[in-house]
Every structure is written in structure tokens, then in C-alpha cells.
């Protein structure tokens, strides 16, 4: 059987992908910082090639409670974007976005849910702007969808799609945090099977 695409990436290809992740995530962090009017620290994006079953460990395990904003990316390189926050971070983020005192929110109402989805939308849009710029491709996000549940259950949506063609996921992942560390989050870009090759081609690093 042919070796899995994600396992045969060259160091140069990995570098190119990491750099895109870096700039995309930087854009997204700037957008987030503007929404909540706070300084945001961002980790250097990690480019991980993980067995599918280990992806939930990135956010603390399959039974960790998280809020997830999920968007599909349409265009020549269909992908999925997932913005995951621990439950408490999601509440703090909503408090900041809605101008409430931190610690107010304990349950999300419909307006809070809209706010979270909109934040996910803005982050995804700013990330995709960078990706579109580098690849000269038009990449458009779907409407966002929100779920508040166990990380394993939320991630399964993406992992199942990848599972049809392989046992590994290429995960471009960045961690965000405010200075007070009251909002932390993970931003995932997971290219669909086949999309990785398209991205590498447009970057000119597909040998």
C-alpha cells in the first residue's frame, strides 16, 4: 500500500506549512485581541502528525469539556477549521466580548452562543485570508456551528473524515492565551484528504 501522504512530507514542506500556520494564526490572534481588547499571546504553531486516536490528547483528553466552533472551508483545498476552548475559557471569552464582568457567565444563552460563533468566524476568516494570500486560492468559510461537549466527541467529526483515507492527522495547532490566562484556546486547521497536495503545489514545494 502507498505510504500515507502526511508521513512522507519533506522537511522543506513541513517548514512551508509551519510558516503558513504561523502567519495565519498571527492574523487570527490579532483579530481576537481586537475583539476583546486585550493582549493575546500566541504559541509558535505546532505542526503535528499524530495518530488519529491521539488528537484529543492535544486538548487534555477525550473527556475534557470544551466549546468547539467548527467551520468547513470551501474552495480548491477543502478543509476543516476547529476552534476549541476549555469550557471556562469560553465563558470568560463571552464575558469579555459582551462587556460583562469576568466570571458572570455560567451557562450560554442564545446570544452568547452567537457571540462565540461570530468570534470563531472572525478567527477563521483572518486565518484563511493569510492562507489565500500565500496560495493564491480563494478559500471561503461556511457558517460556523457550535457545540459544547467532550473534546473527543467534537473532534470525532473531523477525525472520521480523515479516517477514511488514513490513520494519521496533520494538525496545525496554535495555543492562544490572554495575559491573565483566563482565556486559552486551540485553533486547528485540518486539510481534507487530498487538500494537502493542493496546498503544497500552490506553494511550489511539491516535488
Amino acid at each position, binding site marked *: 500500500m502507498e505510504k500515507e501522504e502526511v508521513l512522507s512530507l519533506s522537511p522543506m514542506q513541513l517548514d512551508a506549512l509551519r510558516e503558513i500556520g504561523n502567519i495565519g494564526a498571527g492574523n487570527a490572534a490579532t483579530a481576537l485581541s481586537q475583539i476583546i481588547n486585550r493582549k493575546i499571546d500566541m504559541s509558535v504553531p505546532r505542526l503535528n502528525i499524530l495518530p488519529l*486516536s491521539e488528537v484529543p490528547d492535544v486538548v487534555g483528553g477525550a473527556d475534557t469539556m470544551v466549546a468547539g466552533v467548527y467551520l468547513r472551508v470551501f474552495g480548491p483545498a477543502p478543509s476543516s477549521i476547529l476552534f476549541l476552548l476549555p469550557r471556562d475559557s469560553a465563558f470568560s471569552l463571552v464575558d469579555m466580548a459582551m462587556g460583562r464582568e469576568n466570571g458572570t457567565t455560567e451557562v450560554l444563552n442564545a446570544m452568547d452562543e452567537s457571540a462565540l460563533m461570530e468570534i470563531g468566524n472572525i478567527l477563521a476568516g483572518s486565518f484563511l485570508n493569510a492562507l489565500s494570500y500565500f496560495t493564491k486560492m480563494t478559500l471561503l468559510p461556511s457558517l460556523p456551528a457550535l457545540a459544547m461537549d467532550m473534546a473527543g*466527541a467534537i473532534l470525532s*467529526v473531523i477525525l472520521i473524515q480523515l479516517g477514511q483515507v488514513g490513520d494519521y492527522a496533520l494538525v496545525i495547532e496554535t495555543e492562544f492565551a490572554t495575559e491573565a490566562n483566563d482565556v486559552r484556546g486551540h485553533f486547528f486547521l485540518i486539510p481534507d484528504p487530498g487538500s494537502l497536495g493542493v496546498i503544497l503545489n500552490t506553494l511550489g514545494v511539491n516535488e
Partner: protein
Amino acid sequence: MPELIKVGMADLKAGKNPDSIISYGLGSCVGIALYDPQTKVGGLAHIMLPDSTQARATDNKAKFADTALPVLLDEVLALGGSRSRLTAKIAGGSQMFSFAQATDVMRIGDRNAEAVRAVLKSMSIRLVAEDVGGNYGRTVELLLDSGAFLIKTVNKGENRL
């Protein structure tokens, strides 16, 4: 000391009384528990996809409904289970995100549950209880002392099959 045996995504394990087998955070995946009440042995599979013949990467048998069940059955029989006494309980198969333009990809939970039922039927294993569908995640645990299948959720409480 009873042991808690963990089953990851696209994974399966068998065990015997007094241990229990747990799998965390099932979304669209389906957890399949087989149990023999007389010898108190059983097994749990956490499948991701309905059909190995539709997929390109099929090395991991535990990933698909059609290939995981025969392997799980063998492991349960190897621990002393009797095929004629085995019953099955299943849980999972939810749709975590709802989109206006729901595609086949989004309905994978339903398709997983349907596939599991069909495979159990073809193997003549009786399906005695199920907790499937909805839009929420489940953690499932098979208690091998009683055969009870516990389902824990975040907002929908606990269910005992």
C-alpha cells in the same frame, strides 16, 4: 483490584469480571459492547466508520463496524465467552454539529449505527439495548460483573442499559 480497561478511538479490548471497560468522548463514533452473562466476559469496540470496503486505509480493523466486530468476537471467545450467549448493547452515533446544508459526511453517526445493527444481525448476535443519536457526546463503560452498559453525558445525565 478491578481494573479499568481503556479503549481509544478506533480501538477494541476484551476483559472479564471484575474489570470494566471504558471509552471516553464518543461523538459520531459507536461503542459496541458484547457480553456473556454466564462467564462474565465481554468486550468493547469504539468504531469510527461504517464500512471498510468504502475506505482506503483499512490496516486498523477496529476502525470499521464490519471488521471490528469479528475481531472483538474472537477476543471475547478467547477469554471464555460463548457465542450463543453473547448479547450486544450499543451507544453513540450522534451528530455533533448541525448545518443547514447537511451532507452525508454530517450524517455519519446514523450511518455508523445502521452499519453496526446490520453487522450484528449478520453475525446472529442479539442487540438488546441501544442509546444512539442526538447531538451530544457520550462516555461509555461496560461493567463486566453485571453486563451493565453505562452511558455518561454532559447535559443529558446518565443512562444504564
